[in-house]
């Protein structure tokens, strides 16, 4: 089943003092199946952030459509966009985006509190999730008391607790050391294995090689698509690295 359908997406920014226009997305089309793990790679300025903002209903496209679970994102009115985001999308950010006035438990429960869920339901959802992510003993701690990897796991818990249709990750390993990076990527693979659809935007070939499919974004267009097939992680890593080199040195477009 297709969960996400992006077709002919365009986004043009006009600079503040009028005049010059910047086309961040020219023509982006792709689909994501339920249970898939897709990585989107691209250089700075390739339109990754713009694409992610539109997928997150934080920004409106200038043209084209995004269907999430059959619903057209640009038809969602501004007032309900936040609620839609809360109920259908889970976010993981490079900077963790945890609130320092909340304990990890409260940080994780925040979306449920905002959705008006009961305390019993919060507990019921939190317990298995925390166990699965290995942060049960840290729940009463505050963000500044735990390591970067632990913070990111709490952020993943917060993203998953609403049981979103898609987990959107924006450079989730960007602020982590290599050990925490490995742990987090393993975690993502497990989550995906359990059936969660994951879309991850990243610079890192290492991170992308864990996905089942990789889309390259260049100058506002999908320039190349790689599918894992029967590759091992190492083989897929090599193919992605080769493709990236080719992309960056201006090889032919696929």
């Amino acid at each position: 089943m297709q969960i996400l359908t992006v077709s002919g997406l365009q986004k043009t920014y006009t600079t503040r003092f009028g005049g010059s226009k910047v086309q961040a997305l020219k023509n982006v089309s792709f689909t994501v199946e339920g249970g898939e793990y897709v990585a989107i790679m691209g250089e700075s300025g390739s339109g990754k952030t713009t694409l992610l903002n539109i997928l997150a209903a934080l920004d409106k496209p200038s043209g084209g459509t995004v269907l999430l679970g059959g619903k057209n994102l640009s038809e969602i009115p501004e007032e309900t966009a936040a609620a839609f985001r809360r109920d259908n999308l889970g976010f993981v950010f490079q900077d963790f985006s945890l609130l320092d006035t909340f304990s990890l438990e409260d940080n994780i429960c925040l979306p449920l509190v905002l959705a008006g869920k009961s305390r019993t339901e919060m507990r019921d959802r939190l317990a298995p999730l925390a166990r699965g992510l290995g942060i049960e003993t840290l729940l009463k701690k505050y963000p500044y008391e735990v390591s970067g990897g632990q913070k990111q796991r709490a952020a993943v818990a917060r993203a998953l607790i609403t049981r979103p249709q898609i987990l959107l990750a924006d450079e989730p390993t960007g602020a982590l050391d290599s050990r925490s990076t490995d742990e987090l990527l393993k975690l993502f693979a497990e989550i995906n294995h359990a059936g969660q659809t994951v879309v991850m935007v990243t610079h890192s070939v290492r991170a992308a090689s864990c996905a089942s499919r990789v889309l390259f974004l260049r100058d506002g267009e999908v320039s190349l698509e790689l599918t894992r097939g029967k590759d091992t992680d190492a083989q897929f890593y090599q193919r992605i690295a080769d493709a990236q080199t080719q992309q960056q040195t201006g090889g032919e477009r696929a």
Partner: protein
Amino acid sequence: MKAGFSPKLALLGIKKNARLYVPYLLSCAFMAAVLYVIAFLASTPALYVINGKINGAGTTTIQLVMSLGSGVISVFAALFLFYTNSFLLRRRKKEFGLYSVLGMDRGALGTILFWETLMAAAFTLVAGLGFGVLLSYLSQAVLLRLLGLPAVAFSVSISALRQCAVTFAVIFALLYVRGVLSLRHAQGAALLKSENVGEKPPKSQWLLVIPGIALLLGAYYIAATIKDPVAAILLFFVVVIMVVLATYLLFISGSVTLCRTLQKSEAFYYKKRNFVSLSSLTYRMKRNGAGLASICILSTMVLVMLASTASLYFGAEDAISALASQNPYWQADEMAAIRAEFFSLYGSLFFLGILLSVVFLFATLLMLYYKQVVEGYEDASRFAIMQRVGMTKRDIRESVNAQMLLVFLLPLAAAALHLAFAQPMVWQILQLFGIQNLTLFLGVTGAALLVFALLYCAMYRLTSNAYCRIVSTRSI
């Protein structure tokens, strides 16, 4: 550095921080205007020579009261401007950090600060003294009316202008020195870092709350049960000190303890309405408890001052006739002299009461505004995160309003409570001065409280709106 560059950067800095700088400049100008008015009234000969009948005693009374007032205002202006200026400095740290990363040394930063201070001082003196001259004419008319004297022509007092200019030159010089000193800690990269790192959540402090409650109840009991005017005067300062102590204890530790207790109640805490507000209030109260307690005490002081000086003034006639009936052998000219004496004292006290109330109230409200706006800038990133997680603009508005209402309401409510319990004591003391009209006293107190509350509400709306704009416009 190229000549003319520093003043340009200084002006840019002022423009970029308009939301904080405009109220700051206006309050500087306002303080200068009020100081001029008081200095003018203390020095103008118009008040004393126009009516030959006023004797020397009345003149010195007014002058004494006014010079006392100008002393109070000068000190208060200095403290207040230091306080508001510290908010500006805190905001500007990042900007100065950027300049220093771009290669400006401390001397160059000092030059920018110098120009900035100079511009602020120039604005304060020109606008403040201009406004002060207009206001002085108005005030003189009001004071003359209060004293029962005929109006006089418009005039400007050079000595008052000089006094004002010197006072503010000193204040601004001190502000500049403080700014330069704070730059000493300005190490480029450190300055660019964000304002807050993780902080432990404050703990409940029952050990401070219980003595706070005990002190407050004790003070209230003494104030409410006092029967003897002389004892009232003797105990007045004891009670004031007890209340001040209790207010600080309860605002600092009591508010945090209350927040923590509420957080323990899961049914209450894990509600959309309370969750975000309560957790940030806990931190906010820890940082702002002392400030809010000061605001509460200042408000109580203003209300007591206003109510008692008004009662004195409006009750003067009663006091005079009471004296006259006790001394039936007084001659008409003796009566006139006594009447003049009474009105020059009570009239000028009442006038000073109004003026100081306006100044204190203005300062109180501005302090609240500053605190909230500065916190808004610091909270903006937190609200950005909450929007990502699914907080709607409406949720933000509601949560901000709830927090803000508490921050504004708490000092006002506590001040009203203090005032209610101070009533019997103040009334005993007023009776010593020959005031007998209790209804008048209560009415005046009620009116003062009402005006106070209305202005408070207006400021609450204004601040809440400014805060909301700051936290919700930041990009996600």
